């Protein structure tokens, strides 16, 4: 009462208003809202034209006009709707869709009950029994056929027919009947069977991860040339999976070998020592013997001498005499040795007379100048980069050696020349032997070598065979004026040379 009337009415109020209106209109309306067809008998000039004219009935047979109540009866263009079919018991055949393309006898499972497990049957129920062998054989070899259409007219009254299988005769000369080189697309497959299981469960992420297969990294092939990190290359190797079991007998064998080796060494050493001792003893014995002999010989010699000698000398004189005696003996000893084995020259003496090619052939090492640590010069001044020069022609450059063999040192410096210095300690004792020794004459000559005379310098000049020295001197004297004489000279030389050769 206090509030103004609502502008929008609620649902209840709307409905009540409708009812009121209907009630009022019911009493006052002349024509009802729903159009009914005229009742039977009053339809003479009436033709139903629209859907509403039929009311809730069907077509009017007395009105001779094509009628389509509820749009039934019109020729539809294309509709794949199946008409609802009903089976013998009156139940709607819902699997008509599934059976569309098949014959009515085809076995198709489409009901939910086909999916449910059946009760566990006893083993002896007849459904589970296999058909007899005879039944099976009979199916295969049936000769008698009972046609479904029977009557007096068909098969001239007989109920059954006997069938005989005969091979169809093939003409041996007949070429193939059909062309089989044409390719035609495949026909449509038979209609799919209804799927009798619930849709597959969704794959969880975890399960999808379980089925992931890592990419194959081959140890041999790499078709696209991928660069694969090393840990991935070895990942699938299976190395960590197998523990390598080494038989312990290997260790035992190694131990046994080691022990045997040691024992053998010890045995060899002991034997060597024993032999050495034996040899030493033998040597001593021999020396003793020799000493005795020498003594005897000395005694004999001394015995002759000793008669007119030494009576009351001083100990010092005797000592000095003894020393002198000893030294002389030693020198004699050495001279005897060198005389006895003149071939036993020291290596140094031997090598000095050899030709250079022989030294190289023998592989005598380069005489080292200093004993300090020497570095290969190729290690120094190796610059990488632009400074190192053009290394493009590496193949052509001959850079195996950076210095000539034996260097650019003077050959002269390598040849030994004894100086007049006798003060050098190295030669004190042997000085006289050294002086007398013919160093530059080999003890043993090569068979085809020149009988070399004493060299005076690094290169030994021969006698001037071609008279070139004389020629040069004359040239200097004449100052190059006398040409013809020179030419004649040259001719003479040439002839001389020729003669020489011959």
């Amino acid at each position, binding site marked *: 009462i206090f509030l103004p009337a609502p502008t929008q009415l609620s649902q209840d109020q709307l409905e009540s208003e409708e009812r009121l209106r209907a009630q009022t209109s019911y009493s006052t309306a002349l024509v009802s809202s729903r159009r009914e067809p005229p009742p039977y008998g009053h339809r003479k000039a009436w033709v139903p034209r629209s859907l509403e004219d039929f009311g809730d009935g069907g077509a009017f047979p007395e009105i001779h006009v094509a009628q389509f109540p509820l749009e039934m009866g019109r020729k539809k263009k294309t509709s794949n709707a199946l008409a609802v079919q009903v089976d013998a018991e009156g139940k709607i055949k819902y699997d008509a869709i599934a059976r569309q393309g098949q014959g009515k006898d085809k076995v*198709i*499972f489409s009901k939910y009950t086909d999916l449910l497990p059946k*009760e*566990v049957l006893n083993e002896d129920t007849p459904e*589970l029994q296999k058909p007899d062998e005879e039944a099976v*054989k009979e199916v295969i070899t049936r000769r008698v056929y009972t046609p479904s259409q029977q009557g007096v007219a068909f098969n001239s009254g007989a109920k059954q027919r006997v069938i005989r299988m005969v091979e169809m005769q093939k003409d041996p000369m007949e070429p193939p009947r059909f062309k089989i080189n044409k390719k035609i697309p495949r026909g449509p497959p*038979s209609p799919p069977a209804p*799927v*009798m299981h619930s849709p597959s469960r969704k794959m969880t992420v975890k399960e999808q991860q379980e089925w992931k297969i890592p990419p194959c990294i081959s140890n041999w092939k790499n078709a696209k040339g991928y660069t694969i990190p090393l840990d991935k290359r070895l990942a699938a190797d299976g190395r960590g999976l197998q523990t390598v079991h080494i038989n312990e007998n290997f260790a035992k064998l190694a131990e046994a070998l080691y022990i045997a080796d040691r024992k053998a060494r010890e045995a060899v050493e002991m034997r060597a020592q024993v032999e050495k001792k034996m040899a030493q003893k033998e040597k001593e014995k021999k020396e003793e013997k020799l000493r005795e002999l020498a003594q005897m010989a000395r005694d004999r010699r001394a015995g002759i001498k000793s008669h007119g000698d030494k009576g009351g000398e001083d100990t010092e004189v005797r000592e000095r005499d003894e020393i002198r005696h000893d030294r002389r003996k030693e020198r004699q000893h050495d001279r005897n040795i060198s005389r006895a084995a003149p071939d036993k020259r020291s290596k140094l003496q031997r090598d000095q007379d050899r030709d250079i090619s022989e030294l190289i052939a023998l592989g005598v090492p380069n005489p080292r100048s200093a004993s300090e640590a020497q570095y290969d010069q190729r290690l120094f001044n190796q610059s990488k980069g632009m400074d190192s020069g053009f290394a493009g022609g590496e193949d052509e450059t001959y850079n195996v050696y950076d210095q000539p063999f034996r260097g650019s040192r003077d050959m002269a410096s390598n040849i030994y020349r004894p100086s007049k210095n006798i003060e050098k300690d190295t030669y004190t004792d042997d000085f006289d032997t050294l002086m007398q020794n013919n160093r530059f004459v080999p003890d043993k000559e090569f068979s085809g070598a020149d009988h070399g005379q004493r060299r005076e310098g690094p290169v030994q000049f021969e006698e001037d065979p071609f008279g070139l020295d004389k020629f040069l001197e004359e040239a200097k004297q004449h100052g190059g004026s006398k040409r013809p004489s020179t030419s004649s000279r040259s001719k003479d030389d040439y002839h001389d040379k020729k003669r020489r050769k011959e």
Partner: protein
Amino acid sequence: LLQDVQKHSVHTLVFRSLKRTHDMFVSDHAKSVSMNCIGIILVFYKSIFHSIGVALTADTTMHRNPSEGGIHSMALALPPSQSLLEGGGTRNSTLARKAPTMPKPQWHPPWKLFRVISGHLGWVRSIAVEPGNQWFVTGSADRTIKIWDLASGKLKLSLTGHISTVRGVAVSNRSPYLFSCGEDKQVKCWDLEYNKVIRHYHGHLSAVYDIDLHPTIDVLVTCSRDATARVWDIRTKANVHTLTGHTNTVATVRCQAAEPQVITGSHDSTIRLWDLIAGKTRATLTNHKKSVRTLALHPRQYTFASGSADNIKQWMFPDGNFIQNLSGHNAIINTLAVNSDGVLVSGADNGTIHLWDWRTGYNFQRIHAAVQPGSLDSESGIFACMFDNSESRLITAEADKTIKVYKEDDTATEETHPVNWKPEILKRKRF
């Protein structure tokens, strides 16, 4: 067989045990089990429920009521069978209305490994046993076919000729022939008197995965990765029928004398039963969700089983009506084999073998044999298994390059290996 204890509420456990008891005893028409006993049991349980109900807090009053309702429904269900029992005493039990039975699984002795035969250089993919039970043949990934003596396990003969893995072997019991098929599209017929190949069956477009011989007609059926199965006349090498219809590799084929004569299982998860005379599909079974890799026909019954990665299903001939699921072997099942005693063996890709009672679907044993020394543990897998003709030995072809032979454990009895049957109780709605 030990299984994990499933956690259920007290209500569920009691209800289930009650139902089991009822189901077990209600069908014993011969025994005069009076309803009074069951009534007493019911009353007993009712009292338990009431006591539990009293102990429960106010929150669980809702739970209490349905349990009582359950008991009442049980009580209601019992009177019909009660009346049956009373009437059944006079009538023949077989004429009585078939009450739902909960059958007890038949006891089978457990199987144990008794021989390992090594000699192949690659996976052993297929096995066939000779009809006279003297020897068996194996085909392997090392492209050879080896014939082994069954009694001793010694190698008798090695046949070479295939270019690639030998996927299927079959021995004919009507002629001295051995048939083999391989991944090199070849199907060969070996004459065992000369140990040579005498025939090739040419026509497959891709690897041939399985082969089977018809028991009565001289016909050979092979199935292949080109989604077809082909029927060959043995003598003329002619391709009699090409059974098309599958949309993916046909992995397994079996032949039998009764209709349907050819059954194939494929990687498109369907099984097709074929009419050999017409060369057309008779029925298509689409119940499996994953590829069907193997089929096994029961030697006595008119039933067969198919194995796939989701579960093993049993079917009835001739239309392929579904009987039951054998679930529990959660692995990719590569092979199935059935015994006359009703033992079904399923061998999987992970090396496990499950042994089932055919009739009830009870898994009475699980075996996972150790790999040959020298093989990795991941190299365990079973590709083929077969019972020998005496049905006392099970021969399996494995991925660790060995052949394992199993036999029944004679020392086991029902007491040592009891049947631990806990079937899932289905709430069966009326359809």
